[in-house]
């Protein structure tokens, strides 16, 4: 079968280069715009995790492609190449080496960098001074509620839901008298922990703040809390990331991070002006 081998020189170089260069070039080109600018405290932990993974797996990606490309180029040539046979010992050693490397990279990353961030923000109670906002998405809007001056939410009952009472606040409950509701606009002060209390009226939605590295599904029948600390003022877009129907792509809210003074001003102007019940 000598004919099989003689044809392959040019092609070997091409295929070898494919694996060595193409994938690398794509990574280089693609990595210009990754990750929107960070605006939360725990986001630094998420970013650290992402950078760690990009560096470690990126290195393995490059080395893997390079080795594959090199092997193809090196071992595709005419005439009797003596095959190199692996000894059982060599096979075993490579398996152990790769197993150890992956254990270190994958488990090491999870345990050393990932878990502390995850545990602090997704498996622990928020600090006592946190500002609580309730977000109840529906197809295709975000209902927002603040507990008002008393700091306590009034009871809600889904049977009370109608056009001008979108989350069914109970008008009989005195605690709900000062609740403030809004649609698609959340206002919070910078630097203070925000506790978002997520519910849902109809289907599953997902609360995603890309700049804050916050994502949490809102599941009907459940009340799920997530907390984080905004570190930058500004007006940020709030997309929905769980397929929720035909308007999924335009279910946009805004997350407004104000300075402490601006937030107080906003609160005194809007909370007083509008009360439920």
């Amino acid at each position: 079968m000598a004919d099989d081998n003689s044809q392959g020189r040019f092609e070997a170089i091409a295929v070898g280069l494919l694996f060595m260069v193409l994938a690398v070039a794509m990574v280089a080109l693609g990595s210009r715009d990754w990750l929107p600018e960070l605006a939360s405290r725990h986001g630094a932990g998420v970013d650290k995790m992402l950078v760690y993974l990009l560096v470690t797996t990126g290195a393995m990606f490059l080395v893997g492609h390079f080795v594959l490309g090199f092997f193809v180029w090196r071992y595709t040539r005419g005439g009797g190449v003596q095959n190199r046979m692996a000894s059982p010992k060599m096979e075993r050693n490579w398996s152990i080496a790769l197993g150890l490397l992956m254990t270190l990279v994958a488990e090491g990353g999870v345990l050393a960098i990932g878990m502390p961030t995850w545990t602090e923000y997704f498996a622990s109670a928020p600090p006592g001074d946190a500002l609580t906002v309730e977000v109840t998405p529906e197809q295709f809007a975000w209902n927002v509620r603040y507990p008002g001056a008393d700091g306590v939410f009034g009871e809600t009952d889904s049977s009370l839901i109608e056009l001008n009472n979108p989350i069914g606040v109970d008008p009989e409950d005195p605690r709900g008298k000062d609740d403030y509701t809004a649609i698609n606009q959340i206002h919070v002060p910078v630097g203070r922990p925000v506790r978002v209390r997520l519910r849902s009226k109809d289907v599953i939605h997902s609360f995603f703040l890309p700049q804050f590295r916050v994502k949490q599904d809102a599941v009907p029948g459940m009340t799920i809390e997530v907390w984080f600390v905004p570190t930058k003022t500004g007006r940020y877009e709030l997309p929905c990331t769980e397929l929720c129907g035909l308007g999924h792509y335009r279910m946009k809210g805004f997350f407004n991070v104000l300075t402490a003074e601006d937030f107080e001003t906003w609160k005194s102007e809007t909370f007083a002006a509008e009360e439920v019940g």
Partner: protein
Amino acid sequence: MTDKELGFVRRYIFSTDHKIIGIQYILTGFLMALVGGALAMMMRMQIAWPGRQWGFLEALFPNGMAGGIMTPEFYISLVTMHGTIMVFFFISYVLVSGFGNYLIPVQIGARDMAFPFLNMLSYWLAALSALVMLASFFAPGGAAAAGWTAYPPLSAIASAVPGSGLGQTLWLLAMALFIFSFTLSGLNYIATILSMRAPGMSMWRLPLTVWSYFVSAVVGVLAFPPLTAAAIMLLFDRHFGTSFFLPDGLVVAGEHLPHQGGTPLLWQHLFWFLGHPEVYVLILPALGVVFDILPAFTRKPVFGYRMTAWCYLAIGALGMIVWGHHMFVSGMNPYSGEYFSIMTMVITIPSAIIGVNMLGSVWGGSIRLKTPMLFALGLIAFFGTGGFGGIFLGNATADIQLHDTYFVVGHFHFMIGGVTLLGTYAAIYFWFPKMFGRMMNETLGKIHFWATIVAFYSIFLTQHFIGLAGTPRRYYAFIDYEFLAPMRGMQTFVTFAAFVMGAAQLLFAVNFCWSLLKGRKAGVNPWRATTLEWTLPSPPPHGNWTGELPTVERWAYEYSADEAEEDFTGQTVDASSVPVTF
């Protein structure tokens, strides 16, 4: 019974011959791929040019493309049906059912599957389920539109989205039929591999392809039935007033629903208990066939044979207990997130060993760059790329940012799109001569390879970066969001690459049909490979071995043994003539 005694219908249509059934699955799968691929092209057109008018599509889809402009509900139907068709009705049919049926008996030295009649039933159930799935397009309100994961309440309530009427019901019925058929054929695989092996064919002499089908079948048989149960429960929720997946207090489209006591998370657990193992059910055979193809084109034994088989088993076992990594931000207890994170990372170990074994199989060989080898090499690269993306997503902390973004789309297309697709093509180019007695055209095959691999990297590697920027998936358009503006150029680039990819697959279809009729005649063993099927005529007759069953003397990959006359020694060659290296 020989072929001559059977009429045309019993020979080629209602056949119990595993080879015919395998080919039936392969052809059905490719027909479904044409549909699934066309849907993908339409999605990409919409993403690159949102809201543009495409007059010619209105004739095909008068409702979804009214006035030539795609409606948002039609777009999510496309998303749903593309995913479902490609995963279950293309890759499963061609790679798992098609090649599994074809290869297992001929590679282990059996005359047929353990239960040939059951095998025929499996195929016809599968064909029926494909028809029911396609019928979803013609339902009032359009095809199912709740995503291929069909999360309730979206999939449970008819008023939630237009496609969640009859379209979703048909989707659920089709899935239940599919799983029923898949379970029957999985049991058949297991029984065949365990009890029908030829004399001398010990488990440690099986080709790695058969090993991979064995583990894949075991995983499938254990992991799939829960979704049948879940599908039936969801049908009850939809039509008979039960509330397995629906909590109280739902208000959809202004209407108060009477449900109480269920939870949508139950569906997610049941779905991913199938959904994640499904990935391994599809990937293991792709890895398996590549381990058979590499030695034939490097002329040396596979690297780490036993370790690879053990890794299959390890991946199969671990694959059953990590489904929760799809649910990190679902509202599930965050401490289970930590468990699923740690367990998922354990899978990287056998996966990495398989990766190094594939590289080791290329190392130091005498490589022949024929088309099947090119696709096999591409698969090695894709397995790495997809695997590394998986480390990001299996990590709960990183997944907060990446979940439900294009990063996920890019990642799973490398894994259950790319690895399985390249495995499928490698298998087709490799076994086509055995199946049809003719060679496929090499030049067309090589163009197909280059266009496919370059386009694939362009599409799906790019999507990883689009996802890092926070682009949510399943969006009809990205025009409303400022933070996504920098990604628009990349999205258009992806669309162009997708058209190149699509065109390359049509070229493959041309090659397939042309070679079927006009290809160069293939001999018994055109690749000079060692496994049992290459001792049979091309194509093999019904019953495979006309005389006695072969006796297996040695392991599956005896290439370039020192004292052998040729550079390969078939599994049936008398053990006294040259040393048995394993």
